[in-house]
């Protein structure tokens, strides 16, 4: 009798786990990227453990500063590559393969009912497939590398239902920002959020990834969409191993049950410098924009690029616009179906599949006082460069704003 989280932890810990219990759980897949693996591998070496617990269950994509932007980053990446070879970890994804949170689902590591832990806060993305997925830091990751296990407090869960249907020009990102605005940046701290209702069922797999990706931005430990036909269709011929979908029991106990109506939602933006500072586009129209960024683990998928291309087709962007597909396969698909040609003809700049400027390290950071409309997931002070102002929005709002050089309602373009 439990929530999805309680049932997954019961299986992973081999004991009946209820909310607030401390458990030692077996991790199914462990992910670290070029950023977090540096300290994780360091800690692992300091632990003086010779071999990782299971090389097949460790996944390492290089995405955060990829390709490396200076000698220090390059040398650190070189060290990690050596360690990956030494430990015979087969699931290594080189520079250009894409963002970790896109690469893991594409390669079938994000599976229903699994416990997936990533050394990255947006690892909650894999909840879109019915996994319990959460982020940890580098030393916790070293502990998993060494033992395959980690302690957890089983979270209480919030049951969040979204009725109705999103209107035209309103996307999964708008829904996600709306829910974060309602919940608050810490409203779900320590808790898991289970998403239900017709508006959630209608979301594509890509849209569900956008939603679960940002569960952490309401403080949640995990955001989970119960798997359905769309999930299984996506996973067909990708799954890294067999899986058993897990659903909540009807008598499951929730810390909170909330319900929203998708029909109430307009295009939304999260304003500087906090993700829950969310406003409908109508209140922000006309705000000057210096740069537009379309990409990231939140909104760099094919569907997102297609929406942007639909708006930019046959027109020219008025401000510099950076487009970064979430993965190599996204980029290839966008080339094959003409989306990339449309975007490039409209004047966008294309960068290597990866995190791009999202974390403020390279490929389009902001200057002092500059304003960016970004499809990413965080707008904290200084994130994309000291003195920058970040508005988070859907790819549609971002593309519409690129055309005019000011924040623009995509429904009016």
């Amino acid at each position, binding site marked *: 009798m439990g929530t999805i989280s309680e049932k997954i932890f019961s299986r992973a810990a081999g004991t009946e786990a209820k909310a607030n219990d401390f458990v030692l759980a077996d991790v199914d897949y462990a992910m670290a990227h070029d*950023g977090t693996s540096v300290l994780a591998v360091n*800690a692992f070496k300091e632990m003086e*453990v010779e071999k990782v617990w299971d090389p097949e269950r460790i996944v390492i994509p290089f995405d955060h500063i990829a390709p490396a932007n200076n000698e*220090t980053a390059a040398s650190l990446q070189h060290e990690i590559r050596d360690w990956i070879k030494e430990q015979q970890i087969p699931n290594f994804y080189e520079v250009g393969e894409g963002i970790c949170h896109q690469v893991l689902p594409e390669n079938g590591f994000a599976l229903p009912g699994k416990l997936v832990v990533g050394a990255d*806060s947006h690892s909650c993305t894999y909840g879109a497939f019915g996994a319990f997925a959460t*982020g940890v830091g580098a030393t916790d990751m070293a502990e998993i590398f060494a033992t395959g296990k980690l302690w957890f407090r089983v979270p209480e869960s919030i049951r969040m239902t979204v009725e109705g249907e999103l209107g035209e020009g309103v996307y999964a990102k708008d829904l996600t920002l709306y829910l974060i605005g309602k919940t608050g940046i810490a409203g779900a701290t320590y808790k898991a959020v289970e998403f239900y209702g017709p508006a959630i069922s209608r979301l594509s797999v890509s849209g569900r990834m956008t939603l679960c990706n940002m569960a952490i931005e309401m403080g949640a430990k995990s955001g989970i969409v119960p798997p359905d036909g769309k999930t299984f269709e996506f996973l067909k011929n990708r799954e890294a191993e067999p899986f058993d979908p897990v659903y909540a029991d009807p008598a499951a106990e929730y810390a909170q049950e909330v319900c929203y109506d998708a029909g109430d939602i307009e295009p939304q933006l999260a304003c500087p410098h906090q993700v829950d500072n969310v406003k409908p586009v109508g209140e922000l129209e006309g705000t000057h924009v210096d740069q537009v960024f379309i990409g990231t683990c939140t909104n760099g998928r094919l569907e997102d690029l297609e929406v942007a291309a639909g708006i930019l087709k046959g027109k020219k962007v008025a401000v510099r616009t950076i487009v970064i597909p979430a993965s190599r396969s996204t980029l290839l698909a966008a080339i094959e179906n003409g989306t990339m040609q449309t975007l490039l003809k409209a004047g966008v700049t294309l960068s290597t599949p990866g995190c791009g400027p999202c974390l*403020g390290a390279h490929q389009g950071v902001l200057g002092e006082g500059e304003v960016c409309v970004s499809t990413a997931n*965080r707008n904290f002070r200084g994130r994309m460069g000291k003195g920058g102002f970040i508005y988070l929005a859907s790819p549609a709002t971002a593309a519409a704003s690129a055309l005019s050089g000011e924040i623009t309602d995509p429904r009016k373009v």
Partner: protein
Amino acid sequence: MENPIKGRVWIFGADIDTDVIIPGKYLRTKDMQVFASHAMEGIDPEFAKNVKAGDIIVAGNNFGCGSSREQAPLALKYAGVACVVAKSFARIFFRNAINVGLPLMEADVECQEGDEIEVDLLNGEVSVQDKGTFEGNKLPDFLLEILTDGGLVAHRKKLQSQEMKKEN
């Protein structure tokens, strides 16, 4: 681990995120002094210069929200911060702090910048001169043990050597 921890207070508000604790552009190194020299730069560029070894941070809700970067507690630790007391912590920061051996406690404490306070981790209490004692959330014993051992790496090494002794 020293207990109780006595120190001078720095006050910060709610939702202090990891991008202000240590901006992303400083992450690509293993040099702890780099992290330390930019600690809290996003909110108080003078903090790293003025913080003294043994100082204590007292903050509002959701301290350390944002990314999973372990450099955030490392920056504070190597800048000299002896302990962080907050009304609540973001969960990844909470785990990371314990793992790198930076003591922390959830407590709602009434005090001002510059006050001398005493954090008693083993009893889950914070004492403020002239203002009395505030009850906090005592850490579970297994987390106190990780802190006492000096962090998760040292704790893991201790467990390994215990296991090896058993095998021999």
